[in-house]
């Protein structure tokens, strides 16, 4: 019913969007894998990061791609501090408390943003927002291609960090064996905070990659996090590879559903998959078996 190039372009667009979804899911899955909590404030932090990109661009004239480095550092620091000085101490070692604290944080952040920025939707206007590459019959948005590449590179770097550095190994050690980690001299609260910081830093990168082609309002993060959560469940809780592959897959599903069912129904496919995964493979594609 559609010609091949149109379907191919929809799939390609899905992959491009999916990579950024994957990047957002990455932080969620990492924090879950190590701290064993669902970070309900993930979406609110993403919204903050997107506003930060918008502010930096509007008031400092900073290009979103150039903002990646400073915002990554700033959001790492914010995430580190929030975990170390707010979530950690307030939880008193009970995971149930952490859930409520992150939920509370998200409500506070969202409403603070509403108070500060109203519910207006804002977007950036960069010179390259509408530039495209022409590949045969396909038109590929430059900004979204950069988004894709950025997301893949960050996923690769994160994987490398976890596999090859002492900090990464400490993170993986704490994820499965806290007492053993303490006995080799790993500071568990520090590692928790670093992990949470990395989760926030990936959101800052995602925000920089999204903003050239997307908009921001105080509730925008929530929609992304619902999708990211589906990806985490699909890919397997705590799995980096699962987040990447799940993200790309979900991106394509959303795009194809949008094409065949109409744009407003694009997300229906995502939630059907969510339910199917929970029914038939609750550990996800790459998750550890219980």
């Amino acid at each position, binding site marked *: 019913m559609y010609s091949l190039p149109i379907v191919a372009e929809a799939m390609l667009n899905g992959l491009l969007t999916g990579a950024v979804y994957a990047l957002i899911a990455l932080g969620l899955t990492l924090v879950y894998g190590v701290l064993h909590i669902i970070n309900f404030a993930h979406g609110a932090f993403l919204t903050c990061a997107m506003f930060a990109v918008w502010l930096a661009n509007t008031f400092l004239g900073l290009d979103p791609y150039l903002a990646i480095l400073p915002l990554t550092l700033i959001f790492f620091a914010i995430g580190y501090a929030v975990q170390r000085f707010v979530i950690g101490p307030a939880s008193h070692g009970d995971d149930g408390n952490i859930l409520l604290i992150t939920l509370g944080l998200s409500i506070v952040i969202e409403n603070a943003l509403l108070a500060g920025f109203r519910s207006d939707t804002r977007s950036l206007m960069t010179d390259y927002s509408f530039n495209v590459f022409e590949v045969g019959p396909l038109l590929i948005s430059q900004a979204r291609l950069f988004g894709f590449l950025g997301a893949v590179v960050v996923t690769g770097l994160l994987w490398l960090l976890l596999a090859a550095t*002492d900090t990464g*190994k*400490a993170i*993986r*050690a704490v*994820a*499965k*064996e806290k*007492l*053993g*980690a*303490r*006995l*080799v*001299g*790993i*500071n568990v609260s520090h590692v928790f905070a670093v992990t949470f910081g990395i989760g926030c830093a990936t959101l800052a990168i995602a925000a920089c990659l999204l903003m050239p082609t997307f908009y921001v309002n105080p509730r925008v993060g929530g929609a992304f996090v619902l999708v990211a959560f589906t990806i985490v469940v699909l890919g397997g809780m705590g799995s980096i590879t699962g987040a990447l592959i799940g993200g790309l897959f979900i991106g394509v599903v959303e795009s194809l559903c949008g094409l065949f069912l109409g744009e407003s129904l694009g997300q229906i496919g995502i939630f059907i998959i969510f339910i199917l995964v929970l029914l038939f493979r609750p550990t996800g594609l790459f998750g*550890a078996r219980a």
Partner: protein
Amino acid sequence: MLEISGLRAGYGEVEVLRGIDIAVHSGEIVAVLGSNGVGKTTLNHVLSGVLTPRAGSITFEGRSLMGAASTAIVEAGLIHVPEGRKIFPNMNVRENLELGSYRRAKNNRARNLERVFETFPRLRERMGQAAGTLSGGEQQMVAIGRGMMAEPRLLILDEPSLGLSPLLVEEMFTLIRKLNADGMPIMLVEQNVVQSLEIAQRAYIIENGIVTMAGTAESIASDPELKRAYLGL
């Protein structure tokens, strides 16, 4: 080199250690013995900074470690190989060993890794295998090897024979004696009285959170009181 005196610790209302005095001198194997539930694990949790003591003193090589954080304790070289191994099941053998030098002796990592592989040739064969998939004996080797990677000034071995076959237990005690012969002081916390007393120079028996017997391994092994203390007769 390790002196514990009047140590009290517990959980909530319950006091588990009710004034413990133990000393380990350099070059020694000291056995700390007692049946289940007398406070051995609590003692180890205090010594490794997992549980904060309530009273008493812990001095290690002239420095007080009373209430110190586990990071500082590891840094000082008081290394604890815990009961139940507590190795990292999701990581391979090599990574487990490498993390042993996370806080201490990082610069000698390559050399110490080689030393661990010489002590446990089996671990070299299993280097890339996830530690959680190893047999119990091999996991115990990983746990001890991980401890060795930190170049311990004093090694605390907590129930190293637990869950091992009699043959492997024998092997484990031979290894402990060998590590000690190479110059490492060891505090051996065990339920296995007979074999522990065979390799230790001195021993302490803990009952109900206090030391009820202390002395050389021979004198304790031949003391009729031991049977009463241990078997509750």
